[in-house]
């Protein structure tokens, strides 16, 4: 009977569609006090949410369907519902919250305080402050290992990375990298950590277990942040002063190409297809979408003024 295979096909189609749920990129427009939300399948801006306090950093909590936006001039961070695209609440933290990230289980939020030289740990459900960990000077980018064992913090002014034990919430070790590390990323295997060093125009590659320095790779002028794509085979780095993104082959640790994007490219994150990479261009007020397979910019999406998007800003 023809109806059965047809029903089977329809069912499969429905399952496939719900499995590939829409991904959203949350772009902080720091000079506009807003967040542009991009549907990464259609590559259209579907909403612009007002967030006061010069929104800069972004972190996605997949489990709780929330997005955290750091607001350095509003003493804390804003909590958004990533589905309904609404402001839920504001959470107060000390001096200037910039870097923000979430643990792998969505239970803990980490906020780096640029002035207080600390990382504050929050319970993601109650927003209760659990601990304040003193780190190095001007903590900026942060990332959590895939096994949820470690939190890595870039101490920008100290030129170092702190490795924090997430069971004890204490520092295990701190190691020097290049000058002024800002954005950092860890690979899917939890093997290597990459840091964008703003003042030395390079990337430091570290063994993420021992924090031993494996390599230093020269990139463009004033690198801001890093992202990995194509099963960690490609490292992409935004070069603020060159208006380019360096693409590095992580096997050879050599630069393949410097792709021209907009002016003052900063935040960078990889889409759920592990191929397309989104870059926020602070000066041009838009986002460049790069296809990492063919190393080309495939789209430029208009966002708001001073698009920064520091952190992991794509919610699957």
């Amino acid at each position, binding site marked *: 009977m023809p109806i059965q295979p047809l029903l089977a096909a329809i069912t499969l189609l429905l399952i496939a569609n719900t499995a590939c749920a829409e991904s959203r990129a949350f772009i902080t427009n720091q000079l506009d006090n807003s967040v542009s939300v991009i549907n990464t399948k259609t590559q259209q801006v579907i909403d612009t949410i007002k967030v006061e306090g010069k929104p800069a950093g972004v972190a996605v909590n997949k489990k709780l369907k929330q997005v955290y936006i750091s607001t350095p001039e509003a003493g804390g961070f804003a909590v958004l519902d990533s589905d309904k695209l609404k402001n839920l609440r504001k959470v107060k933290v000390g001096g*200037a919250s910039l870097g923000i990230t979430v643990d792998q289980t969505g239970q803990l939020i980490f906020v780096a305080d640029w*002035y207080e030289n600390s990382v504050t740990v929050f319970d993601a459900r109650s927003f209760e402050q659990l601990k304040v960990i003193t780190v190095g000077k001007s903590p900026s980018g942060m990332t959590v290992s895939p096994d949820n064992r470690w939190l890595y913090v870039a101490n920008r002014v100290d030129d170092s990375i702190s490795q924090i034990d997430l069971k004890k919430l204490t520092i295990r070790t701190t190691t020097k990298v290049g000058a002024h590390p800002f954005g950092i990323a860890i690979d899917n295997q939890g093997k290597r950590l990459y840091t964008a060093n703003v003042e030395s125009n390079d990337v430091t590659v570290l063994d993420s277990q021992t924090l031993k320095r494996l390599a230093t790779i020269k990139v463009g002028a004033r690198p801001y942040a890093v992202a990995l794509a194509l099963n960690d085979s490609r490292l992409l780095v935004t070069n603020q002063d060159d*208006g380019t993104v360096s693409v590095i082959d992580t096997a050879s640790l050599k630069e393949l190409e410097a792709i021209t994007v907009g002016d003052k490219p900063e935040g960078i994150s990889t889409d759920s297809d592990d191929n397309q990479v989104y870059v926020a261009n602070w000066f041009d007020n838009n986002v460049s979408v790069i296809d990492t397979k063919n190393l080309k910019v495939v789209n430029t999406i208009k966002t708001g003024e001073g698009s920064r998007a520091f952190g992991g800003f794509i919610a699957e």
Partner: protein
Amino acid sequence: MKKTSLFVSAAFLLFSGMVNAHGPVRAKLTSTIEIDAPAAKVWEIIKNYDDMSWHPAIKSVKGDGSNKKGALRTLTLANGGTITEELKSYEDSKMAYKYKITEMSSTGTIKHAGQDETLPVLPVGNYAAELSVTDKGGKAEVEWVATYYRAYVNNNPPAELNEEAADKAVTDVLTKGLTALAKKVTPSATPVVHIDVKR
């Protein structure tokens, strides 16, 4: 006045001072002027990277004569100071070029927080700018956009090197330039420069 309240108010003043102080944040200063003349005519005057004779605050320019990416020019200012700038991009068809400051001379030093601080001739850091002309219904719209940080990189900057000083100095340079350019092209019109600073 009670001793305790004096102590509390002093402590509060100290605290609020620290809260208001912050590390450098990049500014975007956009200056625009409309000149009643064809855009191409205005571009002719400003298009050569080593020719800044249209700017009254710049006494002379030494360049390699090219409009190629990487070209360097050194401006000698009316006050004797020098600024070296590198050409980052040049698009004749778009009537635009971008450049950044690579070196500056200093006007002296001041003492601040126990250290000697150099005063650069322009109190800014990491300065980049774009100069462009666009046709707006037969008229020329000149836009000069600068991005920069304040010159002092630590918290609690001295007045000479804070955000206000940076904004004021950049506003001055761009306004003087655009005003003079407009006067050169349309001597009888009143130049109006619009300034917008975002940080």
